[in-house]
């Protein structure tokens, strides 16, 4: 079947860089997601304990505590201050994502990403159009609701429905395979993304991702369109990007004197734009190399990409 480029944004990149080159960051991400999961699974499967717990709170090699900061914040709002070990875990996690990019969690750690990526891929191949259009800021409102809900209910309220920890817990403790809530919630997210709203869950609703986005508001590691002058407006990056509104300001900002670094907190640092670009426009860099002169060359300017990006 010959699919139009909108359905196979990596096609040109595969031709130019080979399949591996066009999927480098995708493969690294999948390896990272699998690797983080494997840390939790060696114990129950092989009896070799590396990391115990879930993404909500874990203990690695008996010494390294990691705690989901949103969880700790909800607990405080619900009236409970966690033990020191959990708070140390919060500090480590916040510090790491404040440097690496908050939503790097979404792209490299969160297991739901695999589910929604699959839905997104299937959506492109089935030719399903946008569907329900949801404001991307809705996740911030949802986050505010979660925090307020923790105050009013006196419970860590998001944990009653959180697909992130439910899926992870289901994988690590086996509940996913017993037709329980973990599977139901995971399939619900998949169906929502596939048939109801494009990039619906991760890109519009998930308050965990929204919170990590806020954590990484000023993060150091960023994707930069430092080669933006080579851009030929093929649109592949916009097609493949799960948060495509983040690209245009950096990629098309030259005329407005905007630097090449993607500064939006919504960017997940997934690196798919780097993969699918045949002109090597994108690369990982630091937020501080962001003067327009950090993208050398001449030309560029507004193209169709700009218009579509504004429309989304």
């Amino acid at each position, binding site marked *: 079947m010959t699919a139009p480029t909108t359905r196979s944004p990596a096609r040109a990149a595969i031709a130019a860089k080979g399949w591996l080159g066009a999927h480098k960051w995708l493969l690294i991400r999948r390896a990272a997601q699998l690797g983080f999961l494997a840390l939790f699974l060696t114990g129950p499967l092989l009896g070799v304990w590396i990391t115990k717990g879930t993404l909500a709170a874990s203990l690695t090699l008996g010494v390294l505590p990691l705690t989901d900061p949103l969880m700790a914040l909800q607990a405080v709002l619900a009236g409970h201050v966690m033990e020191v070990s959990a708070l140390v875990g919060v500090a480590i996690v916040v510090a790491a994502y404040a440097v690496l990019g908050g939503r790097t969690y979404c792209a490299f750690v969160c297991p739901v990403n695999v589910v929604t990526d699959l839905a997104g891929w299937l959506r492109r191949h089935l030719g399903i159009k946008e569907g329900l259009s949801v404001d991307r800021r809705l996740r911030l409102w949802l986050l505010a609701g979660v925090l307020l809900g923790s105050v009013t209910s006196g419970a860590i309220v998001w944990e009653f429905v959180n697909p992130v920890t*439910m899926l992870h817990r289901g994988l690590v403790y086996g509940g996913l395979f017993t037709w329980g809530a973990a599977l139901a919630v995971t399939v619900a997210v998949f*169906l929502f993304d596939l048939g109801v709203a494009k990039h619906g869950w991760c890109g519009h609703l998930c308050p965990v991702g929204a919170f990590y986005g806020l954590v990484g508001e000023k993060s150091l590691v960023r994707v930069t369109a430092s080669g933006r002058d080579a851009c030929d407006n093929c649109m592949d990056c916009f097609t493949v990007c799960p948060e495509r509104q983040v690209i245009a300001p950096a990629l098309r900002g030259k005329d407005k004197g905007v630097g090449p670094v993607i500064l939006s907190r919504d960017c997940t640092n997934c690196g798919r734009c780097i993969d699918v670009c045949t002109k090597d426009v994108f690369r990982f860099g630091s937020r501080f190399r962001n003067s327009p002169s950090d993208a050398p060359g001449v030309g560029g300017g507004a193209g169709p990409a700009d218009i579509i990006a504004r429309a989304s």
Partner: protein
Amino acid sequence: MVGTRDDKDTVSRRGFLAGGVRAACGAGLLALLVAVPAHRRAGAVALRPPGALDDADFLAACVRCGLCVRDCPYDTLKLAEAGDGQPVGTPYFFARDIPCEMCEHIPCVVACPTGALDKGLTDIAEARMGTAVLVGHETCLNYLGLRCDVCYRVCPLIDHAITLERLHNERTGKHAIFIPTVHTDKCTGCGKCEKACVLDEAAIKVLPTQLAVGELGKHYRLGWREKEKEGKGLIEGIIDLPDRMPDPPAVGPERLPNGGFKEFKP
């Protein structure tokens, strides 16, 4: 904010397929969302691990990470599934499946990073996971007059949390009945009694303490307790009238040294 975008290519096969998929996804999504709360399967009471905060506070603290479950050496603790009677992902155990073995060092509490299991609990005998109640007054073998005693024997706090109280067996008229009696101030709710009960359905069950134990009205005062607290009578100068005893028996017929009556003539 929310709206649908019309598909332009409504006639194409792909469009038809996509529409079908979308409709199926929407229906499936709804089905899943209503299916989860509809789950019900537990008949037993899901008990919390030792040191768990009160129900309301517990859900403000527990992040459902399962570290307590991992460190439970007896696989007693599990994370709840929909329908187990506790919120999904929170730790619990069914006493009749695997009771709490009351580890001396309480590894589940040590493992808890959040304080949902209170680190203040260092003596497992102080744990209050629930309270055992002898619910089967008509089925308990001891109540029937036999000497089963199993719940009493397995109790880690034997003679403190469960004692055998002796009553007269009215049925036979000459035997004793030994009633297993739970003392709520000592029972930890570990569930070993419930696990060990030999009946098909346990006659002794661990219930959440607030369900298991009655509660006196706040205004109740038990006279004998108050007196004990005071160390003396509660009312000063109460007049203690002399007790009137039955009159001594009237002088009857004169007795002989062998116990017979003088007037008696066979």
